[in-house]
């Protein structure tokens, strides 16, 4: 059903629902003594990571292994990439080795889509620059649906560094596709110029939003991506946009707190709020495995790899790999 998973905008409500429903069945596997099924036996999944990541890579690795796929981990550090190999040549090398799926994280927006032009393998975007992180959005939608039993009509406040956040782009699009309401909250410097076009409410003040939110979704302050002075100081950010005990008290009784991780305790939220009973942060991590299993299961079955037409401009290397 899915050829590649690049961008949440490409997924309609039916597709998202199928991914989430399938993930529910995979969630049961974690409770079994043998947490593995033979479905992807003989398939090879490559984790191609050009940026540091622990939870996403490990989550994909566990997901693929529980489906009995073989997993290759390829990180830019300590690989031929650090010797100057381009994304294209790396991709063609993997292609020549016959991988069935490539999970790619890259610092450049659009890297995952570019990869699909070079390889026959299914491509799953695990984060491309400031663009998209669709499996994060899907696991967040899954976690919200699991908690509330629905997505439609819920109101989600997405707080913080929207500008640098691929997670925000994916999550907001996914929520809107599933008919949930979104308010973007943050200082003007950390909201994208185009935020008006996001079809979301915008608030530069956190407090008035708290009472009406079903979910408060805190974004990580991405200091590593900030090349200018976007906020006066981390302390001021924490005071104005951080979730502390007082603000926790302003939330509706049923409201929950989410964070895509890794979180900066004392910045986006205080340490005691991070451990409050109404956070779903641990469930998000748990659900990540089931959702990624769902994506791999839905993408890797069916017709064996398509044979591209001759003369499509692919290198000889990839043609050899297909024989």
């Amino acid at each position, binding site marked *: 059903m899915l050829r590649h998973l690049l961008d949440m905008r490409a997924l309609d409500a039916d597709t998202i629902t*199928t991914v989430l429903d399938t993930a529910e069945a995979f969630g*049961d596997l974690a409770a079994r003594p043998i947490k593995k099924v033979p479905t992807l036996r003989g398939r090879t999944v490559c984790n191609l990571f050009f940026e540091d990541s622990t939870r996403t890579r490990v989550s994909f690795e566990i997901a693929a292994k529980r489906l009995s796929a073989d997993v290759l981990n390829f990180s830019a550090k300590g690989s031929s990439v650090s010797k100057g190999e381009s994304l294209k040549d790396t991709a063609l090398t993997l292609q020549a080795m016959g991988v069935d799926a490539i999970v790619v994280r890259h610092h450049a927006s659009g890297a995952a889509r570019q990869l699909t032009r070079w390889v026959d393998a299914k491509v799953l975007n695990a984060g491309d620059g400031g663009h998209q992180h669709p499996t994060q959005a899907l696991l967040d939608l899954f976690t919200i649906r699991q908690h509330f039993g629905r997505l439609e009509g819920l109101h989600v406040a997405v707080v913080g560094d929207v500008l640098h956040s691929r997670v925000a782009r994916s999550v907001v699009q996914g929520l809107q596709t599933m008919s949930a309401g979104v308010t973007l909250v943050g200082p003007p410097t950390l909201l994208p110029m185009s935020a008006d076009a996001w079809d979301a409410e915008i608030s530069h003040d956190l407090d008035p939003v708290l009472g009406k939110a079903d979910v408060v979704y805190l974004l990580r302050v991405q200091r590593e991506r900030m090349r200018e002075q976007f906020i006066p100081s981390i302390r001021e950010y924490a005071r104005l946009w951080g979730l502390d005990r007082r603000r926790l008290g302003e939330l509706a009784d049923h409201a929950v707190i989410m964070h895509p991780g890794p979180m900066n305790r004392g910045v986006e939220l205080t340490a005691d709020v991070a451990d409050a009973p109404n956070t779903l942060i641990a469930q998000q991590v748990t659900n990540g495995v089931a959702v990624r299993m769902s994506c791999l*299961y839905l993408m890797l079955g069916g017709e064996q790899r398509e044979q591209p037409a001759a003369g499509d401009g692919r290198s000889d290397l990839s043609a050899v790999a297909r024989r």
Partner: protein
Amino acid sequence: MSSARAPVSGAQSSGARVVLDADAIRRAVLRMAHQILERHAGAAGLLLMGIHSRGVPLARRLARDAAEIEQVEVPTGTLDVALYRDDYAQIGPRPLARTHFPVDAQGMTVILVDDVLFTGRTARAAMEAVIDQGRPAAIELAVLVDRGHRELPIRADYVGKNLPTALHESVRVRLAEHDGVDAVAIEPARRRS
């Protein structure tokens, strides 16, 4: 599974031949419940696992009949075998349903329940799915209809009705819980799954 889910064009599709009506299905299930209790001298250590989708209501009916016959409660669960099928690479992903073991399969006699036994591939997948949950003492197979054409060395222990069919025919089982009516019909459909 198999041919049971072939074309769903409706009951009156031309050439359909009803081979079991509601009463016949009721009697067949009741007889199988008797046979299960007879063979095991009661229901101790038995676990009924209905294979999605129409094995699930059949397993519940067997449990209900067993309860009426001997006032015993047989634990009854649901089994989805999609992740264990051997045609994932050819057919692709199928929708997943919930697998639920009401008790640990370890040491139990697991009776797999399905509507139609055809190639045997679903039963093979189901055996693997059960064994992944623990090592059962034994696995048996109960089916409402055995239509023949096995592709694997598998046979049923309890059969509601042996139904000789041609390969190009399709056996359609309808059960009230899913389809609003109880009936088994042979249809001259061409599709084989």
